[in-house]
């Protein structure tokens, strides 16, 4: 890539808003190259909005969002899509589509008007299916899968995009606890293989276990950044989430574990 000190993604004084509703007046945030960055914060604090800005779905009103130091707004859409992949909060699968077909639609940014289906596409889809353990289900219609399997298909579609940065908006929502950890393990594996992963998560214990970098947000602003063990203190959690708590070492991993105090 570029200079290793350049963040893969950065918001610089970005004003993020939908129509008349401003979410962040001027936000600064960075995603280090090779990091597993997790964005946490209370509901409606602007986590997903920041992720949307990172993924080009939302253009900043003022300030800028940078990809490898370049203004993201000036990067051609398909080129950006070859660098940054996104698992949106909700997507729709066309009725009757098979797993392999849906995953292969992630190849769109690599295809041109005249460059049709290639060996590279085939290989990328095969790898994505293997990574997500979907090879056996390749020819099964997506409608027939369970929620956990379906989420893996969407992840596989983002993987087929073969981007070096992968953004995920609340990827564990709607999954039972075992499938949540399956998915996080998959992300950890991708991270070990060199992908820069950025995820919005709700569960602080999961965030602390998997993240190398944490971005804590509140009210449209970044209130803390850094390694989970440095950032996640009882004082911060109480201030940001309004939740009196203890922070103890996770008995399995030693990462910070938030234990709420009795409130009644």
């Amino acid at each position, binding site marked *: 890539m570029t200079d290793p000190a350049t963040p893969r993604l950065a918001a610089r004084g970005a004003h993020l808003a939908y129509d008349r509703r401003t979410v962040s007046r001027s936000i600064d945030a960075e995603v280090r190259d090779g990091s597993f960055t997790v964005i946490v914060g209370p509901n409606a604090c602007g986590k997903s909005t920041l992720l949307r800005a990172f993924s080009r779905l939302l253009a900043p009103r003022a300030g800028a969002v940078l990809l490898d130091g370049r203004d993201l707004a000036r990067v051609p859409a398909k080129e950006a899509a070859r660098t940054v*992949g996104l698992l949106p909060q909700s*997507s729709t699968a066309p009725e009757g589509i*098979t797993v392999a*077909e849906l995953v292969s639609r992630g190849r769109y940014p690599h295809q041109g008007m005249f460059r049709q289906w290639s060996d590279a596409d085939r290989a990328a889809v095969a790898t994505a299916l293997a990574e997500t353990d979907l090879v056996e289900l390749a020819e099964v219609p997506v*409608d027939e899968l369970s929620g956990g399997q379906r989420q893996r298909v969407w992840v596989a579609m983002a993987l087929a995009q073969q981007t070096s940065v992968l953004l995920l908006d609340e990827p564990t929502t709607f999954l039972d606890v075992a499938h949540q950890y399956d998915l996080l393990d998959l992300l950890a594996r991708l991270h070990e293989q060199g992908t820069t992963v950025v995820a919005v998560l709700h569960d602080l214990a999961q965030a602390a276990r998997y993240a190398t970098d944490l971005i804590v947000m509140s009210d449209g602003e970044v209130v803390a950044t850094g390694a989970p063990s440095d950032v996640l203190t009882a004082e911060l959690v109480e201030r940001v989430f309004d939740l009196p708590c203890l922070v103890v070492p996770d008995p399995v991993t030693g990462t910070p574990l938030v234990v709420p105090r009795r409130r009644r």
Partner: protein
Amino acid sequence: MSALRPDDRLRPRADAGADSGAGAGAGAGRLARLRPRSRRAAATALLALVAVIVAVVALGLGDYPLSPPEVLRALLGGDGFASTIVLQWRLPRVLAALLFGAALGASGAVFQSLTRNPLGSPDVIGFSTGAYTGAILVIVSGAASTIGTAAGALAGGLVTALVVYLLAWRRGVHGLRLIIVGIGVTALLHSVNSWLLLRAQAEVALSASFWGAGSLALVGWSELAPAAVLIAVLAVLVTGLARPLRQLELGDDAARAHGLRAEGSRLALVVVGVALTAVVTASTGPIVFVALAAPQLARRVVRSAGVPLVAAALVGGLLLLVADVVAQHVATSPVPVGLVTLVIGGLYLVSLLVAESRRTR
């Protein structure tokens, strides 16, 4: 923590029923579903074959009946009189039915895919009605040449589409809003059309009504050629837009994350879809039902992912051809094909609405 339990891969987990409602069929149905892509290609090829066969049969029907072998010989320029009948009289009409039906089917597929709704078809959204308004205005104004009427219909359809698109716009255009605005505009235009016809002189109103019934009776080679050229151009454009259409099916967020300019692609698809319907309407008068039904029938025949463009075009051509054969030969005296599709379409629409209301209840 194993990333995946082996049973996860072989069959849907117990929680499958919670959100998919299906699940049980995954194992047993696997054999039947082997290689869906080649099965779909085969089904599409079969549709094309059926269309050719029906076309050959249709070419033989009429006051001077010909058997299929005689038709084939006539097509190859065999004996003089049969060739004249087939090549000069019957072929333009059969080709027009196939080509116009295909254009309507493709147009319906584009709109149903964009709106994600089987009701999202250009005739329901009001483009055909708007085209009729345009045609009536031209006929009533007294400039009723064939080209003038066609131009009026084209303009009427495009203006209606623009109005519906703008009225439905709110930070982008979304399926259901487009349909509901379209149905409202259709109702409005129907009353405008009635008012125009009531005010017009009797013979003018009659000629406008005749046009409004939608017929292939007046299509000869000279009417077919320009429409065919336009439809060929539009077919190329639709082919180029097929991939963006498939991306839009995934939802705007996923499509844009894949580098698609979602709103621009949608507008281009709307324009091409409207143009496909408008060209046909301008040539024949409004023919309803084909754009509505063909994509859904094609989806069932081909069992495709989403609404299949090519198969919808084939089914559309087949439907209009069959409807035109019925219009010409089944009734005691020939009726306009638009009337036949209207009757079948009414029945289809009722069954569709019943099925939809059962599903959403």
